[in-house]
């Protein structure tokens, strides 16, 4: 079993101009086919970190441009789905998006163009990965650290790290090594959901807290009755305080 403490990391993305533009769907196709991986990453993966508190999953840049500027919603839908299907596979994502665009006859790809000044600008995301907080030694500490971590930590470990290395996210592999396969599986399922990052965080942590309830109940069954009553009173008092607390406080 792997008992070495786990260090979490966050990420900062620098944006690099590639000096390449697409003015129609054919140029978009060629651009996607030839773009460096860091550009596919920036436009079809990194956008999830730009508005982590959004209500839902924001569309990738390629489909957003196709829908909003070129105004070809059907292709936008298909591009969006292609990006969603390959969250950890740059080559697969690229091939799927190129295939969507190649399904449109070439002459029509040229006809579907942007107004002057509305060209798609290819950019690249360059990542700077930084340690985040002290290392954690057990599953509870990991979840507590994730609860306190900002969106860039969630993004790095559960989206960018597998995209970059093709491997299982470090916290999930670490939990398995720690002999916590059930918690690892729960983390894997929740963090793989294609939702806004804050939503992923909320549902993951909520499942974790619920899973701790049964453990706490089981642990409490061996505690003498007066202590259990006192613990119950404290829990109710805490709940009342939370209910009474004005929103946002």
């Amino acid at each position, binding site marked *: 079993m792997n008992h070495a403490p786990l*260090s979490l*990391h*966050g*990420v*900062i993305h*620098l*944006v*690099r*101009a590639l*000096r390449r533009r697409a003015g129609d769907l054919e140029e978009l196709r060629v651009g996607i086919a030839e773009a*460096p*991986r*860091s550009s596919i*990453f920036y436009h079809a993966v990194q956008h999830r970190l730009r*508005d982590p508190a959004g209500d839902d999953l924001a569309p990738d840049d390629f489909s957003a441009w196709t829908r909003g500027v070129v105004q070809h919603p059907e292709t936008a839908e298909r591009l969006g789905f292609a990006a969603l299907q390959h969250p950890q596979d740059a080559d697969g994502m690229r091939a799927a998006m190129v295939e969507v665009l190649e399904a449109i006859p070439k002459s029509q790809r040229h006809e579907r163009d942007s107004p002057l*000044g509305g060209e798609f*600008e290819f*950019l690249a995301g*360059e*990542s*700077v*990965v*930084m*340690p*985040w907080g002290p290392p954690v030694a057990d599953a509870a500490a990991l979840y507590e650290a994730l609860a306190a971590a*900002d969106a*860039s930590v969630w993004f790095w470990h559960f989206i*960018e790290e597998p995209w*970059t*290395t093709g491997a299982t996210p470090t916290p999930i592999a670490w939990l398995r090594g720690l002999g916590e396969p059930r918690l690892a599986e729960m983390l894997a399922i929740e963090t793989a959901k294609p939702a806004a990052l804050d939503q992923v965080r909320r549902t993951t942590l909520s499942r974790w807290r619920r899973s701790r309830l049964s453990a706490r109940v089981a642990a409490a069954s061996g505690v003498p009755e007066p202590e259990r009553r006192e613990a119950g009173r404290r829990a109710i008092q805490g709940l009342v305080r939370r209910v009474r607390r004005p929103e946002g406080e």
Partner: protein
Amino acid sequence: MTRVPVSLDGPSQLDGYRAIVGDGPVQTLERLAKHLRGRRLVMVNSTSLGGGVAEILHRLVRLLNEAGIATTWEVMPGHARFYAVTKALHNALHGTPVKFTDEDREVFRETNQHAASTLELDGDLILIHDPQPAGLIDRRQPGQSWVWRCHIDLSHARVEAWDMIAPLVQRYDAAVFSHASFAPELGVPAMLVPPSIDPLSDKNRPLREDEEERLLEPLGIPDRHPWVTQISRFDRLKDPVGVVRAFELVARHQRAQLILAGGSADDDPEGAEVLAEVRERVGKRTDVSVLELPPDAHLTINSIQARSTVLLQKSLREGFALTVSEGLWKRRAVVASAVGGIPLQVQHERTGLLVRSIEGAAYQTTRLLHAPALRRELGLHGHHHVRDNFLHTREARDYLALFVWLASHSTGALSHPGVASGPR
């Protein structure tokens, strides 16, 4: 004396930011600074007074020092002949046709050479702002990282002007631009770092009601009707006459007060000309107020923006237009042209409304004057958008991250086992 003293007195900027953006962005800044600890950052530009770059540096240098990275600010010494050349260079980089003589080029080169011998460029990380000091790269020492930060829109740069700068820029480790469309073809990485505003400064801090009244009272602006305001220099590219024409269309349907407020035009012959054109167009209208403000009227600008119902930025061409972020930060409803860096700040129908014509500006302004709920919604989203993307903490973070990134792509002088540039 070339070093600009930056006061560390008064309340902590980091604490001020923590209250605004939360712990996360401040901690990120501190982590980056911790990683770079022991290194010294030197900022260089050509003036410590006036202009957006100096305004940013006064605050940013302090913020970086508070975050834990020793940062100094050097101002390049110059003379009248040099400034005449660099002013022409600036205009030509913006697209104005200018012819440079060999003598001009020599003045530029010699002044940079002289400055290189007087400035304290002994830091590990050197950030050079704008074209004037670009030639300082001759002073580069082994182990240093040099970055050129261009605040100018180079998308219409004249070839003869860019040819003066390009050979110098190619020798930097990276160049930084405010917007993708401003970045020319380069042999070095062209990074994008939008400029930012300081929510703690006089121009952007929240004003008490009595303070606001006291600032607005001397201006004598009628306040019976909602204010529609454009804050900008009297410059044709800001289209102040177009703003008046748009307002004439608005006023057919809705009583309102237009305010055009900008810097004094005394030292700018073209500014005076444009101001005269604006006054002529306004004529005897009493529902239009044209204000000439001194360069340090930050609090007055703050109070006008805060009191306005709709803020306009109807530019024909723009660099970044931080007045837009200033308005959004104050939760104002903004109507702005889709040019330059404005669309990064105004996301149409989410953080503001983008327009492309006089009629468009009139339509969206009229719409907003009748829609308080929409104004509130746009203002709220705009405020959050600026908080997350256009405050000094983000700009400082990007500069530090860039130096870390450069280090991981060079000899590893700053490499650290826990910090890496994501492999692709």
